[in-house]
């Protein structure tokens, strides 16, 4: 069971990002509504998932690279510090972003938007504390870190992206077809607050 736990956490974080309207399902719905096309809703899911996955993979790549040169303890300390900093930044300036992608965007723009949103949220950072031990347990001898870190990280991205895409798709289609965007008025709870708290708590655990 404990072996499964990190993978469940990765999937859970994917589901959390999938649920968040600011991570993509709402944009897919809006594009579908503005262009009056169910097809656009479905098509939009792919660049949204791809942008999100690239953002997360980029963060994990940096961590794996650092894992080659840092002791596990220092790696945790560095990751925790970045998480705490990100939480503070997001709480203070999360609202202040250049808007580069609008409602007439194509699929490339949508992918870039998803990448920027995931990166701005620090989506990949939350995966770090899950992925570091996975890489370490997979390779008790540090010289093997590289060999195992790559497949483990890729699997982590795949699990996370898979659940995120699945949840995004289910919500986007349900809202487009049946529920309607009136849901947003009361249903759009402040997931950012939860996210900031999660970033900060995870950061604290890592540095302590």
């Amino acid at each position: 069971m404990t072996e499964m736990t990190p993978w469940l956490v990765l999937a859970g974080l994917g589901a959390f990002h999938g649920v968040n309207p600011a991570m993509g399902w709402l944009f897919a719905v809006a594009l579908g509504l503005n262009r009056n096309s169910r097809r656009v809703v479905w098509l939009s899911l792919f660049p949204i998932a791809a942008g999100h996955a690239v953002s997360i993979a980029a963060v994990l790549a940096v961590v794996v690279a650092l894992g080659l040169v840092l002791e596990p303890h220092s790696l945790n300390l560095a990751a925790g510090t970045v998480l705490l900093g990100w939480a503070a930044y997001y709480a203070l300036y999360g609202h202040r972003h250049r808007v580069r992608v609008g409602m007439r965007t194509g699929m490339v723009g949508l992918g870039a938007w998803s990448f920027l949103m995931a990166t701005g949220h620090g989506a990949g950072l939350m995966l770090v504390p899950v992925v570091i031990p996975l890489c370490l347990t997979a390779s008790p001898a540090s010289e093997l870190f590289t060999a195992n870190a790559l497949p483990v990280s890729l699997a982590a991205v795949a699990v996370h992206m898979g659940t995120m895409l699945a949840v995004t798709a289910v919500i986007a289609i349900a809202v487009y077809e049946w529920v309607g965007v009136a849901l947003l008025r009361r249903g759009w709870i402040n997931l950012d607050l939860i996210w900031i708290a999660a970033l900060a708590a995870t950061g604290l655990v890592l540095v302590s």
Partner: protein
Amino acid sequence: MATWQPDPSFYPSPRMAAKAPAENLAYVAAFDPERRKPDAIAVVDVDPKSATYSRIVGQVDMPNVGDELHHFGWNACSSCLCPNAPHPHMERRYLVVPGLRSSRLHIIDTKPDPRNPQIVRVIEPEEVAEKAGYSRLHTIHCGPEGIYVNALGNPEGKRPGGIFLLDPVSFDVLGKWEIDRGSQELAYDFWWHLGHDTMVTSEWGTPDTFEEGLVPEILLGSKYGRRLHFWDLHTRKHLQEIDFGEEYQLVFELRPAHDPTKAYGFVGCVISLKDLSASIWTWYRDGDRWAVRKIIDIPAEPADADDLPPMLKGFGAVPPLVTDIDLSMDDRFLYVSCWGTGDMLQYDVSDPMNPRLVGKVRIGGIVSRATHPKAVNGALNGGPQMVEISRDGRRVYFTNSLYGAIDPQFYPDGIDGWMVKLDVGENGGIAFDENFFVDWPKGHRPHQVRLEGGDCSSDSYCYP
């Protein structure tokens, strides 16, 4: 402070906003044309069931004199729900109130007591000039990148005028909005099509050409604004200019369709140099460009020279002077203020190229001086000017002053302020609410009206 749920006054679509509850309060900008006492935001009771209906029930005075409060707006609105730039956990709480003459920005908190708003921050003109390079602040819109403020001139009172951004949380001046302004130099109004990533701006003139009143030589020389500008809302680059031609002067209020899928809107042109008529134009998407078409001509009315102010005596006619327009939430009815003749016109613009006149009232007017059932003075001056529509489209409010320096050019006896309300029929048709007439306290003139919870010129939407 971030909230747990979106503000209840945010609606994803204009269709949903049209079902919003009726407003109980209206906020009205009031200024002293003599610049002796502070301008104010007045709170007017618009709840028909209230004992103080049609009365000013609160007021917040500005800290200085001579601001010339004019237009103003909310810190946050329905566009906070947009999917590409979401920041939904905000409150529609603060009024952002600029001084058109002073270039000073006031942030006014309408909570905890909406009838007793309080100033919580004042941004001085020097800060705006230093950080944004603009002055003479005019229109406010909440939008994807925060609070947009436009300004009619640079700090020296010359061209160019343009737009700058305020942080929607701290209200800090973030800087100039334009990245490439192309041929645009003059400013007046701005708004956008969120569904088409397009900003639209219109033109008046530079402050040195209107702060002492309209200059006849500049007007007759067609040197005031006469163009529309179209921009990419997100790259902030100028895309296209449309010149209405030498005949047309003062291209003012912009009212894009609320439905984000519709790529058209309406703009009023104050005066034609050929025959003093006013006109309404529709801008629309034509292939991959924007185009305009004149859809309404409102002719001048012949008048006896003895009844006309000096500026108009030679023409023997009253110009309609369309100085404000407003579009209902369902994009069906366009209201047109004729500040010269005193008419408020209601057009059915369901087909934006073929408007039908479906309602009309007259009040004030340069010659007509038409009265109101509840007015004690039987000859009202000023005319229909800043007009605002309730979200459900059933009530229309308007006031009668245009601009301190221009009021006496057309109403030389002075303007006694008033605010009135129209009731709107199910399928058009307008009539005065005989119980609503605010005889504005002497010393102030009323200008823009904003309704509690939002109105038809305060919010923009990303969902149809």
